[in-house]
Structure formats: C-alpha cells, structure tokens
C-alpha cells in the first residue's frame, strides 16, 4: 500500500542540472508576471534576418523565435520586435513592404554617451548625431537594412506618465 511518506524512503537519484531549462523557466515566469500583459509589438522589415538579429542583440534584444526563414521575434523588456522579410508580406496587388522610413522605436538608455561611443566604434551608421530634444537627448541610428532606431536619455523636464489607468 502506497503512502505519501513512502516517497521519502525512495533512493535519491542524482539529476543532471539543466541550466538552460532553469533559465527558460525563469524567463517564462518573469514574462508571465504582472508586466507581461502590457507588452507592445512593433514590426520592422529587413532583407537579412541574420544581420538584423546581430544588430538588435547589440542593443539588448534577445531572440525569442526564428520560426521561419522570413521571420524573427525579439524582445527587449516589454518591447516585442518582429522582423519580417518583405517577400513574406506582399500585398494582394504585389506591392512589397520595404525597410526604412522615419517612424521608429525609441529606446531609453541611461548611459547615452557611452552607448553612442561604443556604437560608433562598432561602425554603426548614425542618421542623426546626438542632439537635444524636449526633455531628452537623442540620436537616431540605422540598422543594417536602414531602419531607424532612436536612442534617448531623459534630461531635465523629461515627462513620463506615471500610475493610473492605462487603457
């Protein structure tokens, strides 16, 4: 007859630690936390997913999925960045999306000068040099496909909505 306490008398079997499993579990738990419901999604187009992935890793993004040759999903905090190749998103009339434009994600960095210097050393292209905006310093860099990415650091007068309903 099995009793619950019998389990304690079973021989102890050593288990190989699986760090990747633990890390994945931690990530899932954290992502499923109270903040998870608020994640926001942005899609960028790129011709070369490998180069894009390497570029965005440098900015602190992590790969979540590479589920097809034309698609990658990356995360940086609550930002989910979808990278798609143009061919996978042709419109009915044959029009293909393309990288570029001026609309962009805007990433907060708290060590702005250091980040800018490091990116320049790495040969990253700057569309606009560091400048003063309203309550921020900002610069716009370009990913390998020419998509803009804004980096900003809060300055005096910086505003952010705090608390309250976010609907």
């Amino acid at each position: 007859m099995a009793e619950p306490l019998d389990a304690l008398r079973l021989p102890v079997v050593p288990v190989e630690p699986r760090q990747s499993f633990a890390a994945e579990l931690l990530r899932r738990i954290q992502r499923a936390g109270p903040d998870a419901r608020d994640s926001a999604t942005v899609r960028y187009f790129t011709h070369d997913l490998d180069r894009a992935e390497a570029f965005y890793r440098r900015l602190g993004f992590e790969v979540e999925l590479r589920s097809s040759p034309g698609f990658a999903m990356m995360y940086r905090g609550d930002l989910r960045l979808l990278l798609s190749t143009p061919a996978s998103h042709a419109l009915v009339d044959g029009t293909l999306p393309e990288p570029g434009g001026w609309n962009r994600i805007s990433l907060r960095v708290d060590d702005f000068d250091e980040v800018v210097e490091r990116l320049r050393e790495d040969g990253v292209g700057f569309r606009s040099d560091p400048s003063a905006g309203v309550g921020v310093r900002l610069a716009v860099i370009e990913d390998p496909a020419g998509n803009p990415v804004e980096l900003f650091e809060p300055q005096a007068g910086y505003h952010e909505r705090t608390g309250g309903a976010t609907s």
Partner: protein
Amino acid sequence: MSSVQVRYIVNDVDAAIAFYTEHLAFHEDMHPAPTFAMLSRGDLRLVLSAPGGPNSGGGSTLADGRTPEPGGWNRFAVQVEDLDDVASQLRRAGVWFRSEVIEGVGGRQAIIEDPSGNPIELFQPIRPEARLSEP
C-alpha cells in the same frame, strides 16, 4: 507606466491625436506644443512629431537637410480579438485600409493608415505563442 516608446512622424498632430484616441483607444498624455504630442495605450507610448519644426526634437530637419516624413512600412501592432469585427467598424468610420486581411503564420492582420499615411497593424493571433499575454 509605458515602457515601450515609438515615434511616428505626422503632418498634423491634432488630426493624429483625434485618430489615435477615437479609433484605437489611445490616451492623450500631453500635447505641449503644436508639433508634438505624447499618447499612450497600455504599455505603448506613442510620440507624435511634426516634421521640420523649429527645435522640434524628434522631427527636426537633419544637418544634411533631410526632413523626416510620415509613411513607410515599419509599424506598431495593435492586438485585437476579432479582426473582422474591428475592421468593419473602422471601415464604417472611414479609416483607410492599406491592405486587406492577410493570413500569416502566427496570426491574421490588416494594415490601416493614420491621417498622415503611417501604417498601423491590426493583429489577431491564431497561435498561442503569437499572443501577447493579454489584449
């Protein structure tokens, strides 16, 4: 608190505020100057900049003379539970659709445009891993 920020260039900040608040449930956080506004929706903060304004920060003309402009294909996505329903509501409201409904790998999507021609993706997940934790 919004922790993801996206900047869109718009020709008419007031028209954009009306569009995003009326059709997509954004909240107007501030509109301190005619050329700039900050909106939010859940964790997404959308900053709107008019191109080329004086001291306009994100919309400023570059040193080489290039001026930011609306448009392009990069966009943020708004998750919806019933794309067909939302799409028909928006069509009735006169919103412009750049694309018909596209059936993708992780979901179905349609692209609408704001008054300046910036794309917004309406996204209905059809696979669990494509879903944000909550709409």
